[in-house]
């Protein structure tokens, strides 16, 4: 492409930095706003994965409540014996596995579990009877309400239920979000002044103010959550450094071994009997100051045998530090020597690994307890609102005067954007609450029940897109927001009719997880009803046109360029 041509053609770049960034912000933001809205809303719901899962298994919740007033069962104290039972089980059932992991959990309600690496690859698991060491078969699937619970939202927000492909789509979208955030900040020169500006009921200006307010208020959170989200799969997204330093063959595997499995011994071929592991558990408890949760045995019955004891994070510990790393102490069993100790919140390899670990904890809010979860929930909702207001602002701005970006096709593109906005914002929200409805409406004995709940989520979402395309824009907004309000507000009633449970009963038995889900649904329902009413009373496009000139004269840089 010649330089001459470049000068002759007007590009966003020829108008200076701010205009170039405004262009980048608008167009990078628009195309990802729909998917990002979905990722942010489901990610925000993921904060309360456990309460949602709790609500979605009412039989379990009610069963739990029956035992709530009983004194907790006494702490199990026979760890030495249970360790031996698990070792016997592994020696009989999986002698060839080169890693045995035993959870002799002492806490009430926890039993005895064994995990191992299958010789052919993969992770095996068995729950054992803590008194006999016999494997427990979980055969009562028909009675339970099979569900993915809140994990559906977790899974969707990072891989869209699409495995590796989904991880890449979410990763690319998040990367574009970082670009949109930075270009948005550069565009927005009056960033702090505008933060204190809100002009309600002024059409385009109000949408812009709302978009700016939620974005600026929570900007550090949005940067943090996007960046730390990328970190989970960082070495898949950018594999070059791993390949450069670890060679092309098995690079990832060697890197992971270096990172997560420091000092794993190589098999020697000489036999060695497994000693009493309880004494090592006691030593490890002294070394790391935590109760032992997991016992990991490498190369069982080989002279190179190593045992690593992992601690158990107390909730109070996670109020004091961000890293969720537990303590860990390792021993070479041939000599009985301690080979490595990691204190709780520490790292095996150093600052970089700890940074990565802290970034994961920052993303998942695994620290700080319930108040932190609520803070994340609110910031996540603000991020969701940032996506939604941005997408709506794009059209509100162009409703007054088409900018003709797509030539003759412009009206069709605007119409498409309108459909996508409705299906992404109202439609996805409907899909989320429909997922909870499906949980109560799909019969308990249904085959592949958990899968059908997820199918209901996607099915409803597709229907909302179809509906948005078939109806006029205003009608579609009103109808979908109205449906959303109804589904949210009626959720407690649905629960009452299908399980007999209700807010009063939840309150009476102190079940704030279930009550929280229903109260939040009511709050979202009221918000949706308010939205539907606002759209219903909105001035028609023609009336809005008459008041437009006054707005245009006072517009800011961002509005001019966006």
């Amino acid at each position, binding site marked *: *492409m010649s*330089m001459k*041509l*470049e000068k*002759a*053609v*007007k*590009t*966003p*770049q*020829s108008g200076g*930095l701010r205009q*170039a*960034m405004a*262009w*980048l912000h608008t167009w990078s933001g628009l195309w990802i706003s729909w998917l990002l809205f979905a990722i942010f809303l489901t990610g925000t719901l993921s904060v309360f994965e456990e309460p949602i899962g709790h609500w979605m298994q009412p039989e379990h919740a009610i069963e739990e409540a029956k035992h709530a007033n009983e004194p907790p069962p006494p702490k199990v104290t026979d760890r030495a014996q249970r360790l031996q039972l698990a070792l016997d089980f592994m020696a009989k059932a999986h002698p060839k596995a080169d890693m045995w992991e035993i959870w002799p959990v002492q806490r009430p309600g926890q039993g005895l579990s064994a995990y191992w690496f299958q010789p052919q690859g993969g992770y095996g698991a068995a729950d054992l009877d803590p008194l006999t060491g016999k494997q427990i078969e979980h055969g009562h699937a028909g009675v339970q309400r099979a569900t993915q619970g809140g994990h559906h939202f977790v899974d969707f927000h990072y891989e869209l239920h699409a495995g590796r492909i989904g991880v890449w789509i979410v990763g690319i979208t998040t*990367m574009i979000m*970082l*670009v949109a955030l*930075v*270009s948005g900040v*550069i565009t927005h020169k009056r960033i702090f002044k505008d933060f204190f500006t809100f002009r309600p009921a002024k059409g385009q200006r109000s949408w812009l103010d709302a978009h700016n307010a939620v974005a600026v208020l929570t900007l550090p959170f949005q940067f943090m959550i996007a*960046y730390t989200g*990328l*970190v989970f799969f*960082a*070495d898949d*997204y*950018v594999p*070059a*450094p*791993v390949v*450069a*330093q*670890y*060679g092309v063959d098995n690079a990832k595997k060697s*890197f992971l071994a*270096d*990172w997560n499995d420091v000092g794993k011994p190589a098999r020697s071929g000489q036999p060695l009997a497994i000693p009493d592991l309880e004494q090592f558990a006691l030593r490890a408890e002294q070394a790391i100051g935590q109760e032992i949760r997991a016992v990991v045995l490498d190369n069982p019955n080989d002279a190179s045998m190593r045992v690593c004891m992992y601690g158990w994070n107390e909730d109070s510990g996670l109020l004091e530090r961000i890293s969720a790393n537990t303590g860990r102490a390792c021993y070479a069993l041939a000599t009985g020597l301690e080979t490595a100790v990691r204190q709780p919140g520490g790292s095996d*390899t*150093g*600052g*970089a*690994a700890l*940074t*990565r670990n802290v*970034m994961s904890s920052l993303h998942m809010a695994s620290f700080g307890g319930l108040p932190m979860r609520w803070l994340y929930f609110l910031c996540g909702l603000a991020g969701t609102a940032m996506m939604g207001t941005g997408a709506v602002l794009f059209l509100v701005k162009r409703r007054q005067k088409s900018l003709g970006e797509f030539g003759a096709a412009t009206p069709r593109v605007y119409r498409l954007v309108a459909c996508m906005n409705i299906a992404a914002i109202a439609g996805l929200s409907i899909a989320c609450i429909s997922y909870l409805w499906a949980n109560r409406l799909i019969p308990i004995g249904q085959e592949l029940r958990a899968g059908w709940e997820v199918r209901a989520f996607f099915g409803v979402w597709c229907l909302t897109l179809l509906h948005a395309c078939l109806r006029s824009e205003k009608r579609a907004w009103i109808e979908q927001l109205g449906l959303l309000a109804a589904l949210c507000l009626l959720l407690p009633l649905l629960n009452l009719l299908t399980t007999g449970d209700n807010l009063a009963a939840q309150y009476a038995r102190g079940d704030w997880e279930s009550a929280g889900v229903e109260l939040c649904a009511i709050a979202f329902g009221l918000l949706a009803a308010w939205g539907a009413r606002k759209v219903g009373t909105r001035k028609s496009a023609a009336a809005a046109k008459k008041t437009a000139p006054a707005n245009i004269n006072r517009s800011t840089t961002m509005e001019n360029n966006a």
Partner: protein
Amino acid sequence: MKPVHMMLLSRVLAAVFGGYALTSGVAVLLSSILPLSRVEAVQTATLSAFVVYTCAVIWVFAVQDLRRAWLGMLLPAIACGSLGLLLARGAA
């Protein structure tokens, strides 16, 4: 395709693929020269990659001259990448 669309496409490609090449090149160099153990240097380089990518994309969309945008991505990408590979740590 109109010239303006060709130029836009070229710029987007420079940002996406040129930016990714630059990101990878810088990450390889960092993982080679940082005075840390191998696994720590690789971690640091990987964790920093998205800062590099973001800045690269912003820069590509900020400069006027499209040729400069392409060269600004590819030359440092090649320079950093090859220097990083030359200095790459052995299997130790």
